[in-house]
């Protein structure tokens, strides 16, 4: 079936006048320790990934990710009590290269005591215009079993994601990309633990059982080494800018901007830095304290009006390299985040809620 799919994709590739074959992803391994701490939530865990090619035709990927969560968020401490749980996730992937096309099959399974999720996906990317343009299509279908502590699994949630992307080489130094994604969800889309507030009283939240989302992201990235004639001269410098616009039929709209700058320090060190800005407006049925009875009502601050900020940096060190054989890098990344809610009140103080957080990632990557 892979060969048939490859022939179909390759046929469309011939229409675009392709001239060379695409490469499988390189053999690769990653091992990471990740930490998130913010808003009363701490999630820590390891993650590992291995990718290996077979017979130069197929590449297999497996990765395992663990989140050990200690949750004392504002929802939890004001409505219940602090709890801990562990989520485990396993992802499997298969890449198949045929002419100028790369076919990627994926499967994902996530387990936690009260929520189980599985998904399968297919992505196809095709190089055209002599490798200057890459067009990609993707589809993912997911099924979740939704449960509640002391109740068991009582409902489901299904998801469908459709992706389209184009990456274009603009000049020998600049490239740009555009990605669009449509997501449809059906089933239990809220949380059985979270309460809404109506006339000051806490009631179980009531979310719609369907949701339809769209997102469009534009990105430009370029080598600006020629701009540096004093400090940093002779090193590679790269800048990038991204903008994502999101909208859905819950009336949520979000604008996300991200700017990044990366550079080498000598042959062994690379540093990245970035700034992320996000502004979101609330869902139609979201309310901090509803003053009318409506079919749907939620006090989930994820659906409210807020600004979020991220400022981060990463340092990579080339630990060992034997050309043509292997390359090992050590990496450390720290991102500081802040969320400022405009229509979610901390009921302990009566003021709009805000919190600071941090993401820490320490990881090793190896190509071999």
């Amino acid at each position, binding site marked *: 079936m892979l060969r048939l799919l490859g022939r179909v994709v390759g046929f469309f590739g011939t*229409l675009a006048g392709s001239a060379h074959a695409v490469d499988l992803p390189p053999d690769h391994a*990653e091992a*990471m320790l*990740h930490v998130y701490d913010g808003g009363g939530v701490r999630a820590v865990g390891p*993650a590992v*990934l291995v990718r290996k090619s077979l017979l130069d035709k197929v590449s297999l990927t497996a990765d395992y990710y663990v989140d050990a969560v200690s949750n004392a968020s504002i929802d939890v401490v004001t409505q219940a009590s602090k709890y801990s749980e562990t*989520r485990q*996730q396993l992802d499997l992937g298969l890449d198949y290269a045929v002419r100028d096309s790369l076919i990627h099959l*994926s499967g*994902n399974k*996530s387990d*936690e005591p*009260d*929520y189980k999720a599985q*998904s399968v996906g297919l*992505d196809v990317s095709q190089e055209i*215009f002599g*490798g*200057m343009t890459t067009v990609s299509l993707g589809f993912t279908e*997911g099924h979740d079993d*939704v449960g509640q502590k002391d109740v068991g699994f009582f409902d489901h949630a299904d*998801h469908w994601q459709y*992706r389209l992307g184009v*990456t274009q*080489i603009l000049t*020998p*130094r600049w*490239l740009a*990309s555009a*990605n*669009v994604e*449509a*997501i449809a969800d059906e089933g239990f889309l809220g949380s059985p633990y979270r309460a809404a507030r109506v006339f000051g009283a806490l009631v179980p939240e009531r979310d719609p059982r369907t949701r339809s*989302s*769209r*997102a*469009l*992201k534009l*990105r430009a*990235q370029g*080598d600006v080494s020629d701009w540096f004639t004093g400090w940093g001269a002779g090193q*590679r410098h790269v800048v990038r800018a991204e903008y*994502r616009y*999101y909208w859905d039929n819950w009336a*949520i709209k*979000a604008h996300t901007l991200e700017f990044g700058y990366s*550079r*080498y320090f000598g042959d062994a060190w690379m540093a990245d830095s970035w700034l992320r800005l*996000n502004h*979101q407006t609330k*869902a139609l049925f979201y309310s901090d304290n509803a003053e009318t009875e409506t079919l749907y009502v939620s006090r989930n601050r*994820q*659906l409210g009006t807020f600004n979020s900020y991220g400022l981060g940096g990463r340092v990579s060190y080339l630990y060992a390299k034997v050309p043509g054989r292997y390359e090992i890098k050590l*990496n450390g990344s720290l*991102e500081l*985040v802040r*969320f400022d809610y405009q229509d979610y009140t901390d009921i302990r103080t009566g003021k709009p809620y805000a919190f600071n957080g941090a*993401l820490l990632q320490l*990881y090793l*990557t190896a190509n071999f």
Partner: protein
Amino acid sequence: MSRFLRLAGWAVTFGGVVGLQACAPIEPWVKPYERERLADPIMQLSRDTLAERHRDHVYTVREGARGATGVQGGGCGCN
């Protein structure tokens, strides 16, 4: 009206694809030997899979917006 616009959009897209095939082929204006800088690891759009997936997960479970990031994630009851 929206159904009409959707059909019109598909017609324009299909017509554009067919029309492009009828035009003189566009020659790549950046030759393969000019792409050395673009092939540098620092120019990769996606560099470290686990790190990007973790970062995308942290933001997705805390914001209402999702998608179009290039990261394929699975579900969880994290919100």
